């Protein structure tokens, strides 16, 4: 399975065989139930994703009391929303303002608030992001086509414990009076990681 890219495709089948062998052994040993595995895969493919986080952000934009509660204790506030994958004890939500932009990374592995954002994208787990986010976040933002004012403070949160960080992006102008449901359409995965900004109203018109 290890990483010999000269094998023109045999690498993948070797991986498939090894993963199948592992699952068979663990099943025959009585440690795991493949039917439970099926349900886990299905949950990640169909139920848990950035749409969960988008609902949280939209509610925070819409309801000042919820926003205060979310910034005070992310886990507790999100638990009131009844997500498919219940949030653990350690969710921390950090707020972007006109003066401060937050960005989340895990330089050591791939820690990510999967209860609210689903599985992390490949780029989040990749060496380019993990190496550069803490040293050149503006360069990373440029890779995403995002340019912030030079005077905006940038805070990078390296997820080196079991705390999980999610960014509360700034609410776009021109959305006064919008419903939560409509606001949620403006919330992208990347804006909750801090590598993007929320969509502008005209982008979803």
């Amino acid at each position, binding site marked *: *399975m*290890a*990483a010999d890219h000269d094998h023109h495709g045999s690498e*993948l089948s070797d*991986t*498939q065989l090894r*993963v199948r*062998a*592992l*699952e*068979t*052994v*663990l099943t*025959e*040993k*009585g*440690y*795991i*139930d493949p*039917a*439970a*595995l099926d349900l*886990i*895969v299905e*949950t*990640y*493919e169909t139920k848990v994703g950035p749409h969960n986080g988008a609902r949280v952000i939209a509610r925070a934009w819409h309801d000042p009391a919820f926003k205060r509660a979310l910034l005070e204790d992310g886990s507790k506030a999100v638990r009131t929303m009844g997500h498919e994958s*219940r*949030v*653990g*004890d*350690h969710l*921390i939500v950090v707020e972007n303002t006109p003066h401060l932009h937050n960005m989340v990374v895990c330089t*050591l592995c791939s820690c990510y608030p999967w*209860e609210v954002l689903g599985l992390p*994208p*490949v*780029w989040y787990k*990749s*060496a*380019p992001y*993990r*190496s*550069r986010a*803490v*040293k050149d*976040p503006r360069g*990373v933002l440029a*890779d*995403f086509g995002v340019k912030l004012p*030079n005077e*905006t*403070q*940038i*805070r*990078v949160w*390296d997820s*080196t*414990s079991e*705390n999980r960080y999610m960014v509360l992006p700034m609410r776009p102008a021109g959305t006064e009076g919008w419903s939560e449901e409509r606001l949620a359409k403006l919330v992208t995965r990347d804006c909750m990681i801090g590598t993007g900004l929320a969509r502008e109203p005209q982008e979803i018109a």
Partner: protein
Amino acid sequence: MDGIHDMGGMDGFGKVEPEPNEPPFHEPWEGRVLAMQRAMSYAGGWYIDMSRYAQERLPPPVYLTATYYQRWALAMERNVIERGLADAAELAAGHALRPGKSLKRKLTPAIVGEGMTRGSFYRQAQGPASFKAGDRVRAKNIHPPTHTRLPRYVRGHVGVIDLVHGCHAFPDTVALDQGDKPQWLYTVVFDGRELWGPDTDPTLKISVDAFEPYLEPA
């Protein structure tokens, strides 16, 4: 350990390349790997820091060229063998050759949600916190040869305690199966110039979550 996994601040890996409309899994086996990890964690086969440590011990060329879920699978094979849950001959044969060990519980379809909820890492404090918000601290210049969550790029540098998170299980001992050894956990924020030198963007601040044994007063 000072391994290839500790990537913060390294140069040369190139641009970040997002994939439009990325699926949750690129191949069906990736989903099986993730689900097995969840099920084995629930069963008590190993702790998450043992998974991380197993990945950190992969040879650097493998770590850099394997895909993400290949690394998980390799780490899982290692944990299965090191924890005595199966042996290499069984993995090679693709079948159990002996009965399994008794694990504390099993994830079944009826309770699958429990296997997808993160447990709490809070633990009973063993003593008062040494630091409070606003204190200046130095990340110790330490290089343990085993698992640690103190990245190299902050070691020896001075920051400020930003948040106090209570007491958490200590990854450095959990990874070695030496117990939770609860420790106070802090978010420590560093000025970009302290970490990367005077030419650094003055608007940059970087924080890490640091356990009390990683820190000293500054």
